[in-house]
């Protein structure tokens, strides 16, 4: 048996023969599971009889999507192109009930679209002018290609064209209808021979962050946009003038779901707290060759958060921070308890290679917390989903890969944090000092970022502090083309999952190295 394995066996025996330490691990796991299964979140999905279930349409990529728009279209077969001139795009934001404000949300969309069908979630490609992101080619909900920037008005209209050639749709735009610029092209596999093509307008949920004293929250509501089109023309193999209007996804599918678990309880919560804008109503009218479409909704992946609906599996892990506190205390005490009693001398007399001993301690405390975290996270992520759904909360399903990453990531977060706390304990020796340091450095940044800190400060903390590893729990990606409040409190972290873990691991590595150096230099 190597010296390391002997030290490991000894440290494991030490750990399992202290009832308080074993209990601490159990408590950490119980906190994670318990807090996750007792969520305060309530929703209305399925709570109002048949038909109130929350079912989101599924896009071509299998992801849940939002597919709501005002669509003036006709069926067209084979290859061809459609061209239109956009002469106006205005909008309306939610305000005081009954008194909407005028204004255009950044991702309001008006333009041309070719869809495989009028059913929600159908494959599509669209070229559009947006509220403040210029011309875009978007297709199949998650893809976004930027064209030229700019706005649109009667004085500065914008021409848009969408051309089908087999499975490929090519988007072009022009300021004069003569000189055309290609925005990009999209391949839509499985696009039927006959498509529904035409004009569309939609305008996503408006959200704004509000700071209310110590808590920050978000408020908002549905917005509307109105696009004015003329010179609608078909070319190539396409022809016809049988335009009909559909408001796809007109009714609100998701009744449930608060914005997220974060934020102050009395802060305004996203979604629906402000009455719908009463001024404009979705629909289309035609006057000669001028089409006026008013729409509300979005063509985008369905997202949780302030601007979206529902929550993700991340919400089941709200107890992680509580478990983390217990775990970092354990990590620190695993070594400071020996300093307190002078037992460390007995330990070093039995295992004179101190760095090896520290590695053995780290393996034990990291291994134990990893296993406990893995079990707790697996239990709470699977059971917690049922609890949330039973409460009527709309829960975004996560892929198995995401679930595994969130569960294993939570375990890794706890384990590496415990090792970091162990290193603090080794350097500082005094239990109270080490515990305070570990909690302040590891847990506090997360708690602050989730509660009182302004978003920018919170995001900075979650980039540089050990709490960056909470990024491992993010279940839903942030889409640049979907306006949302991508804040930690809404389940969005500033770093990618594994980058977040790398930040924590770097802290642990540096602290471990420092601990190794002082252990070698210092008299025991």
């Amino acid at each position, binding site marked *: *048996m190597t*010296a390391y394995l*002997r*030290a490991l*066996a*000894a*440290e*494991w*025996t*030490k750990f399992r*023969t*202290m*009832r*308080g330490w074993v209990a601490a691990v159990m408590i950490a796991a119980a906190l994670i599971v318990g807090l996750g299964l007792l969520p305060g979140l309530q929703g209305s999905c399925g709570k109002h009889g048949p038909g109130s279930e929350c079912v989101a349409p599924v896009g071509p990529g299998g992801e849940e999507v939002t597919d709501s728009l005002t669509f003036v279209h006709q069926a067209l077969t084979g290859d061809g192109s459609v061209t239109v001139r956009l002469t106006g795009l205005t909008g309306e934001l939610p305000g005081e009930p009954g008194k909407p404000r005028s204004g255009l949300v950044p991702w309001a969309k008006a333009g041309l679209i070719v869809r495989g069908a009028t059913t929600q979630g159908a494959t599509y490609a669209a070229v559009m002018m947006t509220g403040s992101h210029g011309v875009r080619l978007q297709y199949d909900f998650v893809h976004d290609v930027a064209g030229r920037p700019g706005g649109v008005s009667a004085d500065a209209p914008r021409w848009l064209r969408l051309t089908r050639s087999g499975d490929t749709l090519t988007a072009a735009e022009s300021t004069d209808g003569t000189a055309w610029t290609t925005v990009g092209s999209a391949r839509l596999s499985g696009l039927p021979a006959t498509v529904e093509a035409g004009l569309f307008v939609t305008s996503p949920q408006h959200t704004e962050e509000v700071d209310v004293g110590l808590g920050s929250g978000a408020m908002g509501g549905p917005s509307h946009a109105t696009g004015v089109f003329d010179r609608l023309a078909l070319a190539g193999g396409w022809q016809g003038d049988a335009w009909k209007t559909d408001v796809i996804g007109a009714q609100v599918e998701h009744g449930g779901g608060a914005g997220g678990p974060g934020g102050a309880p009395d802060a305004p919560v996203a979604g629906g707290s402000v009455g719908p804008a009463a001024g404009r109503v979705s629909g289309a009218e035609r006057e000669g060759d001028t089409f006026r479409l008013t729409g509300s909704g979005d063509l985008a992946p369905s997202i949780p958060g302030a601007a979206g609906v529902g929550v993700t599996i991340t919400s089941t892990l709200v107890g992680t921070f509580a478990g983390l506190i217990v775990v970092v205390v354990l990590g620190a005490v695993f070594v400071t*308890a*020996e300093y307190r*009693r*002078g*037992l460390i*001398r*007995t*330990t*070093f*007399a*039995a*295992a*004179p*290679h101190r760095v090896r001993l520290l590695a053995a301690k780290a393996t034990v405390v990291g291994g134990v917390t990893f296993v406990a975290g893995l079990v707790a996270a697996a239990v709470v992520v699977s059971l917690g989903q049922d609890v949330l759904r039973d409460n009527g909360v709309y829960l975004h399903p996560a892929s198995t890969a995401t679930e595994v990453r969130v569960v294993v990531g939570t375990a890794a977060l706890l384990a590496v944090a415990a090792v970091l706390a162990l290193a603090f304990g080794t350097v500082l020796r005094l239990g109270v000092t080490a515990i305070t340091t570990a909690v302040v450095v590891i847990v506090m940044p997360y708690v602050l970022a989730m509660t009182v800190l302004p978003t920018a400060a919170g995001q900075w903390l979650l980039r540089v502090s050990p709490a960056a590893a909470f990024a491992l729990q993010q279940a839903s990606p942030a889409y640049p083309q979907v306006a949302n409040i991508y804040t930690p409190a809404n389940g969005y972290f500033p770093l990618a999952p594994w980058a977040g873990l790398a930040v924590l691991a770097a802290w642990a590595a540096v602290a471990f190295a420092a601990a190794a150096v002082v252990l070698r230099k210092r*008299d*025991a």
Partner: protein
Amino acid sequence: MITVNGLRKRFGATTALDGMTFTVDPGRVTGFVGPNGAGKSTTMRVILGLDAADAGTALVEGRPYRALRHPLRHVGSLLDASALQPGRTARNHLLWLAHSQGLGARRVDEVLERSGLQGVARRRAGGFSLGMRQRLGIAAALLGDPPALMLDEPFNGMDPEGIIWMRGFLRGLAAEGRAVLVSSHLMGELEDTADHVVVAGRGRVIADASVAQLLAAASGDRVTLRSHSAEASAVLAEAGATVTRAGDGVLSVAGLAAGDVVAALHRRGVAFSEVSAHRASLEDAYLELTRDAVEYRWESAS
């Protein structure tokens, strides 16, 4: 065998070790005595690789402690009997130590029995008296069946019964051929136990000798005589004694046994009020040796 050679160590402005040199030979109990602050505990910590010496070497079987693969199989040590986690049972404390040396639970039960702790093995060490903790520390030192043992103040906190047990125990270990180093700040504790004594003071060795040598070196037997007679001195000198005045009416008589002193005085009709025989002890020898080395006289007197 433990060899300490020229150890030097400073803690800030304080010189803890100033050329400490001695060896601990197998088959006997070596007492390591000296007043508090003499450097005994520091020396032991250096031997165990816990403290680094500024200069000098401390070797166990010719090797530095840190080079030992299974250190507890070479040296068993008891530095601080209270260095325990109160929540862990005696047996579990020994169990993790055993695992650190690749030993099993069976060895733990053996040493528990040998140190007389089998009855309390499954009780938490936090509830142990200091004497029981000392026994637990001894059990831990014995785990690896080491050829050398090093015990720092093992008599501390022991009741008389425990002290008698400890003395016999230490002698037994030496009789098994082990090298046993036992420190104490009270020489008396080592009387009848140590075969050899290393006396330390101010970080260095003051005396390193067998107990017999130390006693011989100390002033021999004396008789204290209380008499106001002016003749007493002359009479005793005539009888072959060396007489010194030790105070008003007090004479210190060397070279003559108490009975002979009484007989000589009686023969000549010299009046005296008290005769007391005074045998030199290890304690006297020690006090004489360390008189200059006592750094913390008040503490050591307590």
